[in-house]
């Protein structure tokens, strides 16, 4: 009976578990992408290098810098939403500070 119900239910359980697992994974990947500012910072450094080497001019730099700043702000917002640490903004010495 147990075996039979497993077999009978399998097609229904299978896809449900499968979907949930995929969603978890997608969620994790999306979350990582939303909260990782490393590629954006690299983009900014690359942009600065392009300005230095004369590949782009000043107005172009400022236009793209503004886009990158917006992306950084978006990441910061997501990090805050997920309760992760953010750089910049007001800070204070952590209160449970232990001297090493």
């Amino acid at each position, binding site marked *: 009976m147990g075996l039979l119900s497993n077999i009978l239910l399998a097609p229904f359980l299978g896809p449900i578990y499968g979907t949930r697992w995929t969603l978890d994974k997608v969620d994790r990947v999306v979350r990582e992408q939303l909260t990782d500012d490393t590629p954006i910072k*690299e983009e*900014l*450094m*690359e942009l*600065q*290098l*392009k300005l*230095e*080497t004369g590949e782009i001019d000043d107005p172009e*730099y400022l236009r793209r*810098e503004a886009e990158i*700043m917006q992306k*950084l*702000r978006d990441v*910061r917002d997501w990090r805050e939403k997920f309760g992760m*640490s*953010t*750089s*910049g*903004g*007001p*800070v*204070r*010495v*952590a*209160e449970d*500070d232990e*001297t090493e």
Partner: protein
Amino acid sequence: MTPGDNTAKQSDAIPSEFEGAGKYVYCIIRLERSRDFGEIGIGGGARVYTVTHKDLAAVVSDTPIVIYDPTRENVLAHEFVNETVMREFTLIPMSFGTVFRSEKDVLALLNSTYQAFTDVLEKMQDKIEFGLKILWDRDKVVAAIERDNDEIRRLKDEITRNAASSTYFARMQLGRLVEAAMEEASNRYVTDVHEQLKDVSVASRSNKVIGDRMILNAAFLVDRNAEKPFDERVKAISRQYEDLLTFKYTGPWPPYNFVTIKLKLEKAT
């Protein structure tokens, strides 16, 4: 801070909520007296001064409690203050954008991290940093490789001579050989530069390269006394490679790449 916030608090503004109450911290130095560095701060020339605790001082300017975007303008303002301070002091640079809510919070930082700051200031005494980025011109490097590498030259000649009949395989092989030779050349240049700068620097650190033309993105820690010899050496190396490589040489900087103090900071809400 939005205009809306201002209006809401206008009537019952309390001092700690005042717009300029926050402190933007640029760096930590050793200094017992207070000191004014002039109106050179971030956010349009705020006055830069010191908050002192025993023989340590935080170099700060007043700021609204905001998050500073790392725009060129803001980053340059941050760097300019540190450059100015650096002319007279050994300093520990703070990360860009570090804002404390009040002077009291800055004093708490100096107090709780006193020993670490003191130790690092001791280690960094009279040390400065230089940045060196090396870019290469792919076409020129490939041309040099084809000139110097017999095997590659022969294979290339063969392919050009028999353009119609040259096989896909021969082209693939040429591509692979050139790729390998380029990697080898890049390593050779980088090793040579490091080798030549070894005796005029205290330490070096390689960072991730930016873009596809860069083969070296390094920082060198240099003794203030050795600034001139280091400078001359860099110039000599860049002359040596002037046909192939572009040198981007910056500094002196505070030791951004050689000081890592993990501050136990939390978000102030």
